[in-house]
């Protein structure tokens, strides 16, 4: 099973670029959802026996990140009647390029970190760092509120990947809490997106510029 881990992570990394290069919001939602679901099942590959508790967590993670949150975002998107990210702060080619550079640097940086012997041969740490970076990039360079939420989700996926190294250290309660917080966070953000679209009849955060020095 563990041999399948790296191919899975490579797919996840590829999805980073799909998300980064996409201008159709629905496509980006799908990419992030697929990545979330894929990463959700990674624990099955990392640990040979994860028990009932682990299985529940896998099911909940896949359900939330793969289906509930994306469905909610698609709903928010429809309600706000918005389909595309038209002009991000930097254009799509540059953000893809920055994403590629970041991924390369993540590989280099991860190889300098002193990893425990059993983790060195896998891509977990570089994939985690690269995904966090991609999330950051999307958060900073997109104008549409939904795209920023998607960036946040990518960031969270990256952090989640790292947590797989420590599955035994993370008690059930904390993992459940993290998932609950993530869900609530997206939920609250969704509500605010709804209000933004009502207030400005658009969900572009360009309008949010009144508060400045």
């Amino acid at each position, binding site marked *: 099973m563990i041999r399948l881990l790296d191919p899975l992570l490579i797919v996840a990394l590829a999805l980073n670029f799909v998300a980064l290069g996409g201008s159709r919001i629905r496509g980006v939602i799908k990419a992030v959802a697929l990545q979330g679901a894929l990463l959700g099942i990674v624990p099955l590959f990392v640990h040979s026996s994860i028990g009932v508790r682990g299985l529940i967590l896998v099911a909940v993670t896949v359900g939330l990140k793969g289906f509930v949150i994306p469905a909610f975002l698609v709903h928010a998107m429809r309600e706000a009647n918005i389909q595309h990210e038209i002009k991000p702060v930097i254009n799509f080619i540059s953000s893809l390029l920055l994403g590629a550079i970041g991924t390369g640097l993540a590989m280099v940086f991860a190889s300098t*970190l*002193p*990893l*425990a012997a059993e983790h060195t041969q896998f891509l977990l740490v570089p994939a985690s760092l690269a995904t*966090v970076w991609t999330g*950051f990039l999307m*958060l900073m360079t997109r104008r549409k*509120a939904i795209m*920023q939420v998607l960036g*946040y989700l990518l*960031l*969270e996926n*990256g*952090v989640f990947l*790292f*947590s797989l*190294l*420590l599955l*035994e*250290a*993370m*008690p059930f*309660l*904390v993992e459940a*809490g*993290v998932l*609950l*917080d993530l869900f*609530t*966070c997206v939920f*609250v*953000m969704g509500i*605010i997106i709804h*209000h*933004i679209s009502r*207030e*400005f009849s658009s969900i572009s*955060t360009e*309008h*949010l*510029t*009144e*508060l400045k*020095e």
Partner: protein
Amino acid sequence: MIYLLVVFPLLMAAIAFAVPSNRWRPWLLPVGGLVQLILALWAISEPMKRTPVTALNNWLLLDPLGKVILGFLSVLFFLISLYAPAYLALRADRPNRVFCANLFAALSMMTLVSVSHHLGLLWVAMEATTLISAPSIYFNHNARSLEATWKYLLIGSVGIALALFGSFFLAYASLKAGLESTLLFDQLIRDAPKLSPQWLHTAFVLLFIGYGTKMGLAPMHTWKPDAYGEAPGIVGTLLAGGVTSCAFLAILRVYQICRAGTEAEFAREIMIFTGLLSMAIAAVFMARQRDFKRMLAYSSVEHMGILVLAVGIGGLAIYGALLHLINNGLTKGVLFLSAGNIHRAYGSKVTDDVRGAIQRVPLSGAMFLAGFLAITGSPPFGPFISEFTIVNAAIGSGQFVAGGLFLLLLGVVFVGMGATVLAVVQGNPPDTTPANVFHDNVGTGLPIILFMALVLLLGLYIPPPLESLLREAAAFLEGKQ
């Protein structure tokens, strides 16, 4: 006992949510606030003689540091809850169901932060406070508060995601050292000398940036002026006094681990630098600040800077930092609530429209002025004592540069903040402002006076139980227990 402290406010939140009357619901706040205060004081005083209060296999533990934060939070919440009924009566047009329930839920989560001895649980509670307080910032339901809420939520969530990342790094540091990986605070402290230095190093940076964002340290402070500027005064107090203190506690916990490990020097250097940078940035943006609520936000950035700077200086300054946490929180109560009243009386919060506050709303105007004097460290108020302690510690331990810059920046802030505050309180009220609908009254005035009385008291006399609690907490932080 410890469960009760966390569950009781949650229960009150549920009750507040269920009560149908918009008019009577706010009165639950002072009732719940008082009960929580009594519970907290009981929990703090009881185990002094016996074993510490713990629960959930040491996941929850009320240590001396937690006691300081818990006690302070309870007092702060009780005082702002006194303000709530009168304030919400003025805002009878707005439904306050979510607002009241959220205040209680935030209290519950902040209490959980103060007793968490598990870094994962601490993180969950911290993130929960972020989420819970977001709707309160949006209480006014206008474009500006919407923008503030969005920035608060997004920047706060990203910061806190980095803190989670850092927590994992910390757990990995023990895994790398061949130990059982854990996020239990006490175990981490015990294992600290053996932790892998490189991972500990990176973990501290991530955790400091993450929780520092929640605390509002420069340069991660950008959400603060917006959120504090647009939130109702009562929420501003809760954020500036309560939530930031919780984030500070999280940083202190991490610092303790670094201290017990190999990274103490590194952590202290970062803290001194960030502390001075926060003060400097606050000083720059406070000068000629026309919006007096945003000015308060920068003052909060400044004082958060003072807190981490003091921890970086170490020694006696740690005691000063803990005292300053209390002084700053209480003084922020005076400032935010009186600023809220002034805002209400003029329908504006920029100095172009607001003049002569001391004539139009004499009590709020006077309290705003007194609060300004207190927060900038003028005797005989509390912040003077704590800031003096910090300077003393810096000079005493030979850190002249940090101490000197600290004094210099305090001076700059005094001048910058003074210009705005004096513009607000002095002069003649302009005739153009709408007919006065707001006057000082008992409901909106008494809580401010109580805050001010405590600030003054702490400047003149620190009650022995508080003194010993602070000393105990400072000793605990320095690992002398």
